[in-house]
């Protein structure tokens, strides 16, 4: 392929210079004529074939172009995204194709008029152009028509947008997504309280990638994973943030996209309608997997910053939640960050009897103090 391109490029260059040389030779023979002396200006009264040829191409281009566009669209259409796998995705997909229909119609009508007029009204020595500077009625008509079409599109689009961006239902499953160069973490609220605990970016370290604040009781059963699990058929609320630079959560099949911004949590809620299994059957591709991609440029690894994703039935999701140990369980040293009055509750998540030696009191208070300062400065 490389060589092919190389050869084509070289061929093209050679051809270019052949044509150039020929044209330059021909051009020398033509005498430029001034037109102040009453002779006909050759530029505005073309006599050769060029004008006719250009006019012909003006007609040929849209015909060949229409065929090419139609053919290529049909060819490519089976590789467009599979059917939407979320409730709002079906709505936006429908609206997309309706809008595409409208603009395709406008595209063909206006382009055709443009090219056909160009061809039809090509220069003829015996014809004079029509002096037709204005027609208010016509102008009003073609101001009103696009205005009405736009109004309809705006209104329907706004209704869908309003529903998509409305407050998430109370019963939505909450999942937190945290982007960093160049991977994602998902934090789940755990099986016990269903609530995400506080976080603080100053607490981030290799064993606490999302900066969970263990002085908050709700964080005890939270756990972090590098795979995104989503229950089907129930509202899911993604709480999105970033650690370092902008990222963007893109779930192509669920038609979800929302930026991850350091210092400004964002959110997006949706209802998934097809499990991974169902999608595999539908697409006939046993390898099919949902995924999350980053769509805001974030540095070298941007293009490969993705996360595997599973959509499953609600029961499976609950079982999966239950099967994960909380981050506190995996990192019992964080018990030292838990305030004294909550220690008893936190102990529930510490496995195996020898509850890690309580850290020295001094270190404990420093840690808590620094967290307090950090939270204060945030406010």
């Amino acid at each position, binding site marked *: 392929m490389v060589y092919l391109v190389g050869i084509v490029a070289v061929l093209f260059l050679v051809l*270019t210079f052949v044509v150039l040389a020929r044209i330059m030779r021909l051009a020398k023979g033509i005498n430029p004529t*001034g037109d102040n002396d009453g002779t006909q200006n050759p530029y505005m009264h073309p006599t050769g074939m060029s004008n006719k040829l250009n006019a012909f191409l003006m007609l040929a281009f849209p015909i060949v172009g229409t065929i090419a566009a139609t053919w290529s669209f049909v060819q490519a259409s089976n590789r467009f995204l599979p059917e939407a796998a979320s409730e709002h995705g079906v709505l936006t997909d429908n609206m997309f194709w309706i809008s595409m229909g409208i603009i395709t119609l406008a595209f063909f009508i206006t382009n055709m008029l*443009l090219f056909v007029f160009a061809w039809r009204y090509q220069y003829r020595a015996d014809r*004079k152009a029509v002096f037709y500077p204005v027609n208010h009625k016509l102008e009003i008509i073609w101001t009103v028509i696009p205005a009405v079409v736009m109004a309809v599109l705006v209104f329907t689009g706004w209704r869908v*947008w309003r529903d998509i961006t409305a407050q998430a239902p109370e019963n939505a499953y909450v999942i937190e997504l945290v982007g960093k160069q160049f991977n994602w973490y998902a934090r789940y609220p755990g099986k016990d309280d269903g609530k995400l605990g506080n976080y603080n970016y100053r607490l981030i370290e290799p064993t606490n990638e999302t900066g969970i604040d263990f002085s908050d009781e709700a964080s005890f059963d939270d756990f972090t994973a590098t795979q995104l699990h989503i229950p089907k058929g129930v509202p899911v609320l993604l709480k999105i943030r970033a650690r370092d630079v902008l990222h963007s959560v893109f779930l192509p099949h669920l038609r*979800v996209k929302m930026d991850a911004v350091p210092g*400004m949590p964002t959110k997006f809620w949706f209802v998934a309608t097809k499990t991974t299994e169902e999608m595999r059957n539908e697409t006939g591709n046993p390898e099919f997997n949902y995924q999350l*991609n980053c769509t805001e440029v974030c*540095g070298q690894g941007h293009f490969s910053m993705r996360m595997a994703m599973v959509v499953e039935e609600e029961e499976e999701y609950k079982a999966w939640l239950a099967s994960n140990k909380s981050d506190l369980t995996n990192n019992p040293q964080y018990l030292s960050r838990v305030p004294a009055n909550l220690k008893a509750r936190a102990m529930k998540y510490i496995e195996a009897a020898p509850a890690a030696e309580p850290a020295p009191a001094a270190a404990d208070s420093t840690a808590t103090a620094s967290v307090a300062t950090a939270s204060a400065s945030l406010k």
Partner: protein
Amino acid sequence: MATAELTHTAHAHEDEHEHHELGFIQKYVFSEDHKTIAKQYLITGILWAFIGGLLSILFRLQLGFPDMDMGWLRPLLGGWINESNKINPDFYLALVTMHGTIMVFFVLTAGLSGTFSNFLIPLQVGARDMASGFLNMLSYWFFFASSVIMFASLFVETGPAGGGWVVYPPLSALPQAAPGSAFGLTLWLVSMALFIVSQLLGGINYVTTVINLRTRGMSFSKLPLTVWAFFFTAVLGLLSFPVLFSAVLLLIFDRMLGTSFYLSEIYVNGEALPNVGGSAILYQHLFWFLGHPEVYIVLLPALGITSEIIATNSRKPIFGYRAMIGSMMGITLLAFIVWAHHMFVTGMNPFLGSVFMFLTLIIAVPSAVKAFNYITTLWKGNIVFTPAMLFSIGLVSFFISGGLTGIILGNSALDIQLHDTYFVVAHFHLVMGSASFFGLMAGVYHWFPKMFGRMMNEKLGYIHFWLTFVGIYCVFFPMHYIGIAGFPRRYYSFTTYDATNSFSDLNVFISVAAILTFSSQALFAWNFFYSIFRGKRAPQNPWHSNTLEWTAPIHPEHGNWPGAIPAVYRWPYDYSKPGAKQDFIPQNIPYSATPESNLPHENEQIPMEKEIDALLDSQNEVYKH
């Protein structure tokens, strides 16, 4: 013509002071002559266009042929080709960033508006030069300094800026986050700051000249649409570039002085930064407050140029002159209040999203009116396909095709899926990139005779047009498909997005089309530079055009008209007027000289011609300092 000449001879020698010879430096380098400055802008812009185009070819190679052995590029790119003979992913991002920056700012803003506003405003409104030749000269040299710095940034060891042409913080504010945010980005910011200064100096001149230096009789309702377009463009730039300046300045502070305008709660490279309270979104608001008007800053001049060329070569008045002005005015106003449609999925309040969707889709109405008016101007014309005309028709086609997909992207609900995919890339490359580029090309072909006193080769122009026109559609039309399939932009490789369906065949096609389109620009370069020196000599008015620049000598000196500046009595679009001897009546021909073709209301204007003529003395006063 005879009548016009009579009135002029009396005052032919009033401007003796214009004729002293200037030295080489003053004439060609630090020139204050708007025509020379325009040519400086044009040639700099053309050089930038080839650099910007070349960068795009480099990343198209990567996208079309991800498995290609790029070792042969090592002499050009050195260390940016890694050990496995691939383009370094960081450098890939630098390529797309610099391509965008160069094309949007250096080619389509400076190269287009800088060239034609400078060249045409004084010649078409009938002025001896810009209101301030000195500021105009400064404008070019600020742009030149900005260009030098931007060009130098290509050779920095850590590479040029690499966060996309929008350089969103925090990525751009944290040199430790990416090599493309290191010294290269500092240079980018400095260069942009200088660029903005240049644009403001230019813009002030354009606005002042249009308002104050129109020749006698040249009321606003007789201005050619080119001048109207340049005027609106300058207003847009004057009001929005300062906002970009503030965005850039705050970013410089965040990078160098430890402020937290855009930074908050950041943990990067194993370290929690102290910055809290800033907002990354603030930058996006400031950036797009320029960024969106910028789209019209590059597009409006192209539309103005096209209006003029389509009318001239259809031998018909532009259809709906007032509607054209009105829609440009509408676009100018709306351009300021649609910026947040670039930010639907940034976490901005969804209610704001609704408002911006509404405002964005309104802008489709004046745009549609313009397209319809162009098409109607062709209807029942007598069309001569000069290269300029071909490029203008191509522009209208791109403007329609690319503009229509804007209706989809402006719909916030649909933008969720399409935001930052190739659908967006295809959309804006057609409507803003290609359309404006065609405006630039059309303008060069049309006004080359006035600029250099010679003609460009027309046949080469035809070939150049058809290769470029077909090529651009081949590049950007299929790109929509990749966008509909969801492929995100600024991806170094697509296999990570979808291993089974990476559209590799289509990407090969697009890359080949891009390479051929880019190569065919060599025809233009040859034609342009060859014709400057060896082209056929231009006649006085090669396109039989009505506007004032064609009444100036073929090689206008500094001051444009050797005698008095011609007066203007009529609008610029009296083509194929019923009853007229010729199919054009230039603006400086009074109605009293054309009784055979006057419309009833035009006969009423004949008595007013005396008043216009009486203004000559006061007009001459203006130029006596």
